[in-house]
Structure formats: structure tokens, C-alpha cells
């Protein structure tokens, strides 16, 4: 039986404030264990939290970028449970009065736009980290107290692929707003999913399971695909789905139930008496709104309309803010949108990938890339030579003209010089000439190749072509 898939995602995002949410310890990732801790984030007796204003504003910024409504009044609650990396014995979160509600993200699935609604966004503090050894566990509280937002969707997602697309779009938007590093590998973006199946046409939700530990785009899709398969199997066999929390095991490629004891939660939420309510005025909201940059959707539209880029190019280039910024910076030096797009999307991406690098680490400045494309357009270098130049630029960070000069890569466009060479090649290739005359046009290519070889690729290919035809056809 074919069933409809119902997925809702809860995403935790660490905000990139300088200090923690309730104390002044550094919120920077890493560091020796338990060195970014103080009496407050160690939950020593008598300590009290003081709310970091920047955390509130980052959360507001994210919420506005995700089309949410900021509520006029938000209150922290204590979420009570015991865990060694939770120093206070409760997480300070927002339950009854969250920061924001009713947002959405539009994603493109097979060319169609799908709207995934966001139910709520709230602020909370992160827990520490536990390292599990064979006979004991070790606790590091450097992360305890780093500000988090939790973004909860409505159960609007209809496939594991949509889940991945939602998460990719969410990451892009959050990166655009610069409220988080969104580094999944460092845990600054983490995702849990609720998933259930139901017969098509039914308006009743089936029993759901919760999958934790979906910590990469790949595991979001794979984990959910596995769980769809598992639930379908179970239902086909007439079994009932047990409402439970599962852990995605990336190595084994399966979801495993978490121990039921950990699961028997009764969080006993109640308002945190040590923190006063946050009242958010329209004025404040507008001040934060004014700091939001152009977001992926409108930038995409603009790239298509203003630069005449194909939708595919515009989508790839706007998917991440650094790439879009880089692209537009290049345009300042070389106003040829499609040519720049090709070099960024094809050549630059390939080199970054091959070298396992981020754009931020790239040595080629937008100005240099712009200059290089100009050199091609002016005929100073051939497109072929440009690839060599580009690789060199990528390695050394030198400008294209420096490399061209140093290596003597200037294109030979001197007709007299080339004509002599072409005549020699024609004279040395009687078989090719004969083939050509017998209608084998391929032979022409061979002779062009010979000329390029002689000039180490520096000959202007168009000119070579023209000269060959002149000589052969006469």
C-alpha cells in the first residue's frame, strides 16, 4: 500500500554571539575542556542568569528572515530533566510564550514551489558535551550555555527529499542573516525529525516516531528514507507503530530505539523566576528588520532579472551567501554575468571541491577572476590557456596578468608568425591534407591541434582555423 509521508522537523541552531546566553564566557567553538566555564554555566549554587541581548536580536533576525511573527512578550521557562551535560538540572527554554510564531520557508521541489510552515521559534541554552569511554563518560561544559534557537515546522514535509531541501534552504537563510555559522559538523546546526505515515486521503495522523541525531543533510535524507521504509514494512506486516524516540546510526544506516528510561520525560515546564520577561516593541522589531540583508529568494529573482542568468545558475549562485557575494564582486570587475557564472560554478567549484576547500579560503580574489576573464575576452589568452592560468591563480593567488607574463602565455595572434607555422604544418601533413580534400573535415582539427602543440597552446585558435582554411581551400 502506498502511504503519505508526514514529516515535521525541529532544528537547533547555535547563534554566533561572542559570549554565552546567560553568562560572559566565550561561546567560541573548541578550546580545552572546561575552560570556557564560570560559576554561572557550571550552575554553581547561588548563581543567576543574565540574558545576552545579542542572542535575543539574533533570534529575532532569524525569525524575521523566516517570515515569522515576533510576539510582543516572551518568557523563559525551566525544562526539567537530568543529564550530566545539563548543569542546572533544567534547560532554560521558552514554552508558553516563545519568541516567534507562524513563519514559513519556500522550497523548490521538481520545479514547483512548496511552502513549509514554521510553527514556532524559541530561544534556549545549549547543553555541554559528553564523551563516552568504555567504562565511564566525560563531561565538557564549554558548550553549556551557548545560545540556541529551536525552529519547529508544522508537519508539512512530504518526503525525505523535501526534508533535506528544507534544511538546505534554512541553512542558506540563516547564513545570509549571519546569525549562525550553521556548521553541522561542529553541531551548530542539528536536526530532529518527527515522522509518520498514513493512507493517502486520510486526514488523521498516524503514530509518529522521533529521530534524533540527523547531523548532516545526507543523514536527514537517508535517516528519513530508512524510517519510511521501516514504518511501511511494519504497517504492511500488520504491526503497529510504537511512538518512540529513535537514534539514527549513520554507519549502520539504521534507526535504533533509544533506551526507554531516557525517554520517560515529564519536563515539568514552569516560568523561570530568575529571568524577567522580554517585551519586544514594534520599534525594536523594525530596527532588527533593517539589518536583514537581501535573502536567497529575492536575490535569486534579481540574478535572473538583472543579470539574465538561467534559473539554474541563479539558484546555485544564491544558495550560499558567500558565493553570491563573490559572484557579484567579480561582476564589478568584469560585467559579463554568464561568463563569470561559468567560471565560478564550473571551474572554481571544481577546484574547491578537489582541494576540499571553502570559498573563504580561496586565494583568487574577485578582482583577479574578473581580470582573467577580461584577458580572455580581449584575446590576450585563449580559453584553454586560461584554465592553466586559473589553476595557477588558485594555487598562488597571483594575478592572471602576472602569471601570463611570467610564463609567457600570451596568445599568438600575429598573422605573419602564425601563417608561416600553418604553412609548415600543412606541408608536413600530406595525409591530412588529402583526407581534408576528400571531405574528411576532421582532418582539419588534427592540423589545428598540431599548430597548438607547436605553440604550446598559445596560438589564437580562431586565427589558426582561418589561416588553415585559406591555405587549404586555395
Amino acid at each position, binding site marked *: 500500500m502506498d502511504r503519505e509521508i508526514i514529516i515535521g522537523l525541529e532544528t537547533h541552531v547555535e547563534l554566533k554571539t561572542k559570549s554565552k546566553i546567560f553568562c560572559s564566557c566565550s561561546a567560541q567553538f573548541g578550546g580545552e575542556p572546561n575552560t570556557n566555564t564560570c560559576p554561572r554555566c*557550571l550552575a*554553581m*549554587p*547561588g*548563581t*543567576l542568569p543574565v540574558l545576552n541581548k545579542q542572542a535575543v536580536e539574533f533570534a529575532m533576525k532569524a525569525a524575521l528572515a523566516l517570515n515569522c511573527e515576533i510576539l510582543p512578550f516572551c518568557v523563559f521557562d525551566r525544562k526539567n530533566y537530568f543529564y550530566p551535560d545539563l548543569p542546572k538540572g*533544567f534547560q532554560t527554554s521558552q514554552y508558553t510564550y516563545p519568541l516567534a510564531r507562524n513563519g514559513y520557508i519556500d522550497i523548490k521541489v521538481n520545479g514547483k514551489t512548496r511552502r513549509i510552515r514554521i510553527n514556532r521559534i524559541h530561544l534556549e541554552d545549549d547543553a555541554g558535551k559528553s564523551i563516552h569511554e568504555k567504562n565511564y563518560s566525560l563531561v565538557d561544559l564549554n558548550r553549556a550555555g551557548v545560545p540556541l534557537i529551536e525552529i519547529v515546522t508544522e508537519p508539512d514535509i512530504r518526503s525525505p527529499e523535501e526534508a533535506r531541501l528544507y534544511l538546505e534552504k534554512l541553512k542558506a537563510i540563516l547564513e545570509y542573516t549571519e546569525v549562525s555559522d550553521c556548521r553541522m559538523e561542529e553541531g551548530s546546526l542539528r536536526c530532529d525529525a518527527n515522522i509518520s505515515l498514513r493512507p493517502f486521503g486520510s486526514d488523521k495522523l498516524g503514530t509518529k516516531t522521533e529521530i534524533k541525531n540527523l547531523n548532516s543533510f545526507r543523514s536527514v535524507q537517508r535517516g528519513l528514507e530508512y524510517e519510511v521504509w521501516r514504518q511501511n514494512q511494519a504497517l504492511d506486516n500488520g504491526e503497529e507503530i510504537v511512538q518512540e524516540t529513535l537514534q539514527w546510526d549513520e554507519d549502520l544506516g539504521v534507526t535504533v530505539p533509544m533506551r526507554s528510561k531516557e525517554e520517560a520525560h515529564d519536563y515539568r515546564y*514552569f516560568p523561570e*523566576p530568575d529571568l*524577567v520577561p522580554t517585551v519586544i516593541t514594534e520599534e525594536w522589531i523594525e530596527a532588527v528588520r533593517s539589518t536583514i540583508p537581501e535573502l536567497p529568494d529575492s536575490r535569486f529573482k534579481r540574478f535572473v532579472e538583472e543579470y539574465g542568468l538561467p534559473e539554474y545558475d541563479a539558484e546555485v549562485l544564491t544558495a550560499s551567501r558567500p558565493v553570491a557575494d563573490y559572484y557579484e564582486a567579480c561582476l564589478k570587475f568584469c560585467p559579463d554575468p554568464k561568463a563569470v557564472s561559468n567560471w565560478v560554478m564550473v571551474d572554481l567549484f571544481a577546484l574547491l571541491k578537489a582541494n576540499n576547500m571553502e570559498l573563504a579560503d580561496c586565494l583568487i580574489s574577485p578582482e583577479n577572476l574578473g581580470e582573467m576573464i577580461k584577458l580572455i575576452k580581449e584575446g590576450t589568452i585563449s580559453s584553454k590557456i586560461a584554465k592553466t592560468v586559473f589553476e595557477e591563480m588558485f594555487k598562488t593567488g597571483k594575478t592572471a596578468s602576472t602569471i601570463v607574463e611570467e610564463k609567457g602565455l600570451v596568445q599568438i595572434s600575429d598573422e605573419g608568425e602564425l601563417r608561416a607555422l600553418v604553412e609548415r604544418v600543412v606541408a608536413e601533413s600530406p595525409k591530412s591534407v588529402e583526407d581534408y580534400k576528400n571531405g574528411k573535415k576532421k582532418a582539419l582539427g588534427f592540423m589545428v591541434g598540431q599548430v597548438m602543440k607547436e605553440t604550446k597552446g598559445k596560438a589564437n585558435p580562431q586565427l589558426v582555423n582561418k589561416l588553415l582554411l585559406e591555405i587549404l581551400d586555395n
Partner: protein
Amino acid sequence: MKLNELTAHRLHEMLINREVSARDITEAVFNRIDEVEDELKAYVRTTKDLAYQQAEEVDQKIQRGENIPPLAGIPIALKDNICTKGVHTTCSSKMLENFIPPYDATVVEKIKENSAVIVGKTNMDEFAMGSSTETSAFYPTKNPWDITRVPGGSSGGSAAAVAADETIVALGSDTGGSIRQPAAFCGVVGLKPTYGVVSRYGVVAYASSFDQVGTITKDVTDCALLLNVIAGHDSNDTTSVKREKVDYTKALIDNVKGLKIGVPKEYFAEGLDPEVEKAVLESVEVLKSMGAQCEEVSLPHLKYALPTYCIIAMAEASANMARYDGIRYGYRTPEASDLIELYKKTRSEGFGNEVKRRIMLGTYALSTGHYDAYYLKAQKVRTLIKQDFEEIFKKVDVLLAPVTPDVAFRLGEKVDDPLTMYLTDSLTVPANIAGLPAISIPCGFKEGMPIGLQILAKHFAEATLLQVAYTFERNTDFHRRKPNYKGQEGGKN
């Protein structure tokens, strides 16, 4: 009189006139501690070396001819739930028996800035949960007026130490009466300021929305002096209120003419001892004779204060106690095979019965299916009680009431019956529920045991409160009486 029997303001005069040194005063206090502490048990720990060092610094300042603040060189005792950097802070619990905070509470910083001499940490009910200091994991403190009786609680150690002249002044904390009730039982002055006037940073939380640090002193003048030191906004405590600095000694005016005093009838309900009632009503007459206008008033929701307090305080406590898990500090069970066992054994062995009882009750009140019926209900009734007070303070300046239904009870008398013990707080919790300032001052005796008069005022009206208390004190003799415990000379200060 011996130096340790004097008040802070008297000792300050003697210090600046170079009649005595801070060292002399400190010595007198430690001699007294040596004399009585074996029996009285007011302290958990004394800090003799630190005290002499601080006294020495004050003496040097005086010798250099520098001005010294009013509490410089004055011995002070701190309730053992107030964190002191490098000095054990135990909350009289096995859980924190070995805990040494790496930081000072804000009030301790202020005390140190003012060069008061810290003599030690006083005994208390475990984590401030109790009304007799009998829930201390170490030992009960005795009442110097009658050592078979309790000193009250939870700041029983601080109150007993002041009453027995083992210190000059002390700090306590008041969540449901924990300063006022022991002050009343020990015949000293105890003030709980408005919620938010004194920083709670570094004061180990029992019930966060009620906890407030306050003073225990031998008279109202010392109360104003000590409040001057500890009051003030603190950016480390977001519930601390931003207000202009007040000099509370300016409120020490011997005059209540034209002040409106309300006598809320619900404080005089069934269960109030007739002699206590009589003493309080006579106090009203004293103030009337001084020119105050008195009228009977009503707080219709007052009888709901104690159940409201129980639910909210215990719910907050259940979460505040969750950090004691044997991982980062504090007691840890010697044997635990897994994590759950570590938690359960650590907490069961580390906490005493009363703490466990309150954690259980608070956890129950917050758990699924009970939140609305208990916790939310109590929060709503809290609104009604607060509104009662707001209405009344439109009509009167202060309220006069008893502090406790009766004088100090006997050790062991109520310790096995939690509800009866809770009921001894019924007249003090309303001020905590509404966040009001309230003071207890001596106003009479029953069978040789002191009776306390409670004065309540609206938010931030500590000055009015002190004015009334001061006037009462100037025109009565109750505060001059000392327990005559082990050679106290008593008499006039």
C-alpha cells in the same frame, strides 16, 4: 557592657574616637563564641583568621586617620547559604559539606568593601527549608533565651548569634519568614527588604521568586546601617531593581504623627496565642499614643497565603535542587554502578528529609496533570493576595501584625509533623508572596520568651517601615532586654 554586647552604631563611635580597636571588638566576639558555641551551635564555621586580618586592616586605616564607613571593623555573621569565596558554604547540608565557592555573593562583596569583619557562617535549616534550624544536617541551634527551645528558622543561627552576642550583626535570608520568625523567637530585629532591593547573586536559591537577603541586628539603627550596605542594584541579578540609592538612616525619625497604620484582622485569626495577640495590640496602642492613626483593615485572601506559598516555593525548589547531582561539586555517593543510580543515591544520601519532602511536593505539583490544579492555581491566587495588599496600601502606610502565632517552640516539638511546622510561617509568607518589605521587632514577652511585632509596608517603602520601627523602639524597652544567657550583662546600650 562587654564590647560584643554593643550595637554597631555604638561601636562605630568608639572606633572613631579610638576608645577601642577593631581587634578588641573581634576578640570580644571570638571570646564569646568560645564561651557559648559548644552549647548554642549558632555557627557552622567561624573564620577567625580572616576576621583578624580584616580587623587589622580597619585598625590601620583608623591609625592613618582615614575615614571609615559605619560598619568598618564591625563583626558580622553570614548565613551559610551566602557564598563566600574560598570559605566553605554548606547550606547546612551534607550535599555541600565540602563545597568551597570560587566567588563571593554580591552582598559579601559589599560587606568586604565596607570593611565589616566576617566572623563566620551561621547554621540554618538545610537549604533554608525549615522554621526551626532543626533540619540542619549538622546540628540544631538553640535559642539563647531557653536552650530547650528552637531559635526559629531558617536563619536560626544568625538570629541566635546576634541574640547571644556572638556577633554584632548578621545577614539572613527570608523566603517565607526565615529572617523575621527567628528574629521574633530570639528577640532581635529582622528585616526582609522588598523583593529586588538586595541582590540574590551568590545566595543559594531555595525559592527564587520569594528569596530575599536581609538583616538581623540588635536594634533598628543597626538595621538601617546594614541595609545601607547591602541594598542596591546589581547587574548580576536581573530581578534586582534599579533605584536611586537611599540612605536609610535618614528614616530613623522618632515620630509617627499622622502616619496611617492598618491592623489587618486576618492576621489575628484562630490559632494566634492570646498573649502574642495582646502584645501586638498593645504595640498598636503605643504607636497610636505617639500620634499614628490606626484602623482595622481586611485582607480577604490572606488565609490562602500559606497554601499558595507551599506550592510555589516547593515547585521552584524542586528545580533549584536539581543541580545537586554529584557531578560538578558537592556530595557524591561512593558507590554507583550507573548514572541513574549515581543520581538517586547521591541525592537521597546528600539531602535530608525536609529537602526531599519539598522536592517531592514541588515535583508533584509541576508534573503532568497537576500543573494547572496546583502550580497555575497558586500563581493566580498569588495575584489575588498581591492585589489585596495593593488595595490596602492605598489607604494606609504600614500594617502591624504578629510575626508568629506563638513564641519559640521546643526542640523536637514539631519536627516530625511537616504541616504543623509549615503553619508556623502562616503570618510571614504573605509578605514574600507580595514581595513586600517587612520587619520584626521585639514587642513583648510570654513566659520569658520574646514576642515579635511585624510591620509591613508597600514595595520600596523600607524607610516608612524603619521610621515606625524606630519610633516604637525609642519609646519601648523590649529591645534592650537580653536573654541573660551565660553572663550577658544586658541593660542599656
